[in-house]
């Protein structure tokens, strides 16, 4: 038996409301299926399940608000499910055998045991521990991989091969087995979201400023090469596939974070836990007020076009109020761009337990001296808010200059 608990979908979530169940007892689910819609006071989230099995019981009904970690549903894993039926049959005659002669049950019991079919061994994917870890990082569906290791075991090479294999489906779709047909209709009256969201943001940001010793760095970046390249690139693309310059910024941040590992990861229980994957949280403001920063996964490994698709999808779903649990909880670094709003500089507040936040301002034409000449260039202010527990200003500076360097070679992004 496995428990499905109310997940923690971010540092600022203490409790969630089950808006809707997308499964019922008896339904088979597999890892990655979306099983419920949860309201976190900040947004509505489609919650994925991480076990494979059969839903036995729904514990928390729709509309109820419960703390993080509360048992929401019970499911039986595959092996148990297979064993469950014979178990029931075996249980019935047992009292008949045992009741007449309680002192001498062993013989009878032995007979019963012998005739009972052995429960089928639970089916396990043969995969090496390393390959499993890599598969989780790359979000590769194990079912689709053919193992070439001993007795068909999946090795790291197999996973990497599968991850590279085209076409890479849209993000998160790999684990999505049961997407709801229509956007879920809240079963309960929506909460007073703006007010509760304010409270939630207040708690997270107060915690950040209370616990995280921030340091701040900023640098001006000459965006002329990037903007020129983007213009030429977009001319080649159909309108629907054109890129926004934010995509260049996201990719540059992700690649720079790969080079400076102290920037991405989490500070948990007094220690820095670096993350190999770069899931970039994108701060998106909501029309009704407030903001949310869901993650685009593995930005460093995605092409610009893939990032653009992810970004567009994310913004659309944020505005519609439907996000997936994995997007909410696992950003390893966050980017905020307030350029659209017209400001040139933003020094952000780190979203715990992350350890860095990158801010981009508006691109403005400025006099720019280079090689003894002054000219007008599009210039953008990039900033870094770093957690001094995890990194020092020196490494932070290296990170920012790496972002700058990468933006000077946009064709390589």
């Amino acid at each position, binding site marked *: 038996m496995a428990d499905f608990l109310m997940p923690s979908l971010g540092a600022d979530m203490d409790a969630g409301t089950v808006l809707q169940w997308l499964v019922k007892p008896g339904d088979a689910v597999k890892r990655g299926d979306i099983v419920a819609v949860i309201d976190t006071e900040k947004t509505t989230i489609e919650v994925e399940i991480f076990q494979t099995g059969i839903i036995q019981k729904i514990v928390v009904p729709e509309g109820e608000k419960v703390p993080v970690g509360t048992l929401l549903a019970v499911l039986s894993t595959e092996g148990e499910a297979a064993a469950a039926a014979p178990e029931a049959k075996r249980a019935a005659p047992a009292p008949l055998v045992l009741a007449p002669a309680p002192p001498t049950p062993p013989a009878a019991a032995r007979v019963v045991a012998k005739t009972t079919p052995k429960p089928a061994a639970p089916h396990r994917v043969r995969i*090496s521990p390393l390959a499993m870890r890599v598969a989780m990082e790359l979000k590769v569906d194990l079912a689709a991989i053919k193992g070439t290791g001993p007795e068909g075991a999946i090795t790291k090479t197999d996973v990497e091969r599968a991850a590279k294999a085209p076409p890479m489906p849209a993000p998160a779709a790999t684990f999505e087995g049961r997407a709801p047909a229509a956007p879920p209709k809240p079963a309960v009256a929506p909460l007073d979201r703006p007010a509760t969201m304010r409270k939630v943001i207040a708690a997270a940001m107060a915690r950040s400023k209370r616990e995280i010793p921030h340091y701040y760095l900023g640098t001006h970046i000459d965006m002329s090469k990037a903007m020129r390249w983007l213009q030429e690139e977009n001319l080649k693309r159909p309108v629907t596939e054109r890129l926004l310059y934010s995509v260049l910024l996201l990719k540059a941040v992700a690649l720079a974070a790969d080079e400076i590992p102290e920037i991405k990861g989490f500070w948990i229980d007094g220690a820095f836990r670096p993350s190999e994957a770069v899931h970039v949280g994108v701060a998106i403001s909501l029309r009704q007020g407030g903001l949310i920063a869901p993650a685009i996964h593995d930005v460093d490994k995605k092409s610009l076009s893939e990032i653009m698709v992810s970004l567009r999808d994310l913004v659309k779903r944020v505005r519609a109020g439907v996000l997936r649990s994995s997007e909410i909880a696992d950003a390893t670094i966050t980017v905020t761009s307030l350029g659209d709003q017209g400001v040139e500089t933003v020094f952000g507040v780190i979203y715990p337990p992350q350890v860095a936040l990158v801010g981009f301002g508006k691109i403005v034409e400025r006099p720019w001296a280079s090689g003894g000449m002054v000219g007008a260039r599009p210039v953008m202010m990039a900033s870094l808010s770093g957690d001094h527990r995890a990194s020092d200003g020196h490494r932070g500076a290296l990170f920012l200059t790496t972002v700058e360097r990468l933006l000077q070679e946009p064709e390589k992004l």
Partner: protein
Amino acid sequence: MSLDAQKVKITYREAMRQAIRDALVRDQRVFLMGEDVGAYGGCYAVSKGLLEEFGPDRIRDTPLSESAFVGAGIGAAMNGMRPIVEIMTVNFSLLALDQIVNNAATILHMSGGQINIPLVIRMTTGAGRQLAAQHSHSLEGWYAHIPGIKVLAPATLEDARGMLWTALEDPDPVLIFEHGTLYNMEGEMAVDAGAVEISKAAVQRAGTDVSLITYGGTLGKTLQAAEQLAASGVDAEVVDLRTLRPLDTETILDSVMRTHRAVVIDEGWRSGSISAEISARIMEGAFYELDLPVERICSAEVPIPYAKHLEDAALPQASTIVATVTRMMGGHG
């Protein structure tokens, strides 16, 4: 001056003799004792000529009584000497197990930290010379089980030359296991080779595809296997443990974390062996780095046979290492 001019051709036996001679010269408290170490020059001729140079007080022949002369060595160490006790083979050391395990390894503890035993015991180990089942076993893994002693396995000329002095400087008992097939190994060594540290394993060959972890008599076979594997495109790393107790887990894990595959080659028997301990530590420390199960290549679980073809078949060989690694790498090199 060319590099060669600073090197000298030397055998493992001579390197070991240099080490003993150097220790005798450097420290008046050092003496050598064991069966046939004096007049006969040592069963493996390691101490040849030392009796003539240092006299019978410092090169002492003993009766055939391992328990007595190891016990005498412990007593001498307790009283301020720095004895080197030679036991002819590891099989015979079993007669002195009581002295080694119950006394040498425990007295520091039993005396509440008052009495150290700065004793070095050297002995031959291993098979491969058709000496049959009572002179050929590899029991150093047993000794590596015992807290209170250190267990060294010099597999190179440098370690044969350098480990003894460091062992003598250690305030506690150190056992040195010299594999019998190594004495005739000849190679080049720096003329000024001296003491080496004894707490770290060494990467004798760097590689990226698989970690071959071994020590002592199987190091040569493993390096040979690594060269053969290189010819077929498999880049094997060879880790020489050098010290079996305390094990340098860090170096082992560091290697496995880079290669994600490990094979332990150990001339001891598989069941309850040092190779089992190493495999367990890899599982404990690098489980999520492993792309294949750890493999072990050990001796067949039989008394080591006398007949050459049977002895060869019972021991880990370069060909078995190559075959195992090739099977592991399968279609994905």
